[in-house]
């Protein structure tokens, strides 16, 4: 019986300026086979002969390419598409990422009263996003997380995303992370209703059980994958530490 021929594709994903894109999603269309590019934009995956690869990255147009023998492929992404058009291999992770983005933004919005989540997520075509109200953001966080959990719960045997940079495709940890993010949202809403504190307590029991389960993102050590605060410090050496402290949100404390 003949078996399908496969080949290993080792390529690189860049933007239209040739800068590597870490975290781009590469899918073999019609299958659950997918990877993400590493910190230098490189990826390697085994695919069937004649397969079609779909490459996507937030803020860039997705592109497809057929895999043919002895061919070289160029995955140079052109900017310009909307977040909703981007294919993400796990719907649960996509939804949680959006909710996390909202939750993190609300840390800032407590100070500035507004956040610009919706339009800011619409890609680089919207350069002056209109702010959402804080209430509307919180209204969306909880349904997003609930929906993410449903999708993650339906996944058995790990997520089809070998390049998951946070939990390496472990759906159970992603589910715990949805509860952790929801806890943060509930406690932010505590002053609106005391029932939110009760909800937080309920959700905490289903979230992380130790430091080892923290939701942590490890940055890389190349010029394009370095941590943003490192890049800020490197690129803006003319700015004193006091400014960094203010940006960091840390108050000067008494040493006495």
């Amino acid at each position, binding site marked *: 019986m003949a078996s399908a021929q496969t080949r290993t594709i080792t390529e690189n994903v860049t933007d239209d300026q040739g800068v590597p894109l870490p975290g781009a999603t590469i899918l073999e269309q019609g299958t659950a086979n997918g990877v993400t590019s590493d910190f230098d934009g490189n990826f390697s995956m085994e695919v069937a002969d004649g397969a079609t690869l779909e490459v996507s990255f937030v803020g860039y147009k997705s592109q497809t390419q057929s895999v043919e023998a002895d061919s070289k492929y160029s995955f140079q992404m052109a900017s310009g598409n909307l977040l909703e058009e981007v294919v993400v291999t796990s719907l649960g992770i996509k939804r949680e990422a959006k909710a996390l983005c909202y939750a993190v933004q609300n840390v800032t919005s407590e100070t500035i009263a507004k956040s610009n989540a919706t339009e800011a997520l619409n890609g680089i075509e919207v350069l002056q996003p209109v702010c959402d109200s804080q209430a509307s953001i919180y209204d969306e966080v909880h349904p997003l997380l609930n929906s993410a959990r449903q999708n993650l719960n339906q996944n058995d045997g790990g997520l089809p995303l070998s390049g998951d940079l946070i939990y390496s495709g472990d759906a159970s940890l992603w589910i715990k992370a949805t509860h952790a993010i929801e*806890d943060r949202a509930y406690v932010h809403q505590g002053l609106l209703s005391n029932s939110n504190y009760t909800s937080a307590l309920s959700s905490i029991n289903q*979230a992380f059980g130790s430091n080892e389960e923290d939701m942590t993102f490890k940055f890389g050590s190349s010029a394009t994958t370095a941590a943003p605060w490192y890049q800020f410090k490197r690129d803006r050496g003319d700015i004193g530490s006091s400014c960094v402290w203010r940006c960091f949100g840390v108050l000067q404390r*008494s040493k006495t």
Partner: protein
Amino acid sequence: MASYNDPRLDIYDGDGSSLYGDLYDSHEFFTIDQAASLVSYSELQFVKAESLIATGGSQENIKEAYFTWIKSSFSSLGLSEEDFDNYVLNIR
């Protein structure tokens, strides 16, 4: 932090010689390949303590969450249980 002899001060502030501390020069937050915590167990324990206070939880449970928060914070910064024990003695 200084008045309670919090060992985390050394991590945040080095030898304490600069006005804003040594964080800008040496803290992990500004290293090239830092591990950025998005949500942590430690944070959740603080949320738990706050939520218990708001909902009339028992003093025992509030204290447990509060100390678990501090202990996990110490642990995530590489401090020992002995450091935690000494610190707790100072704040009681």
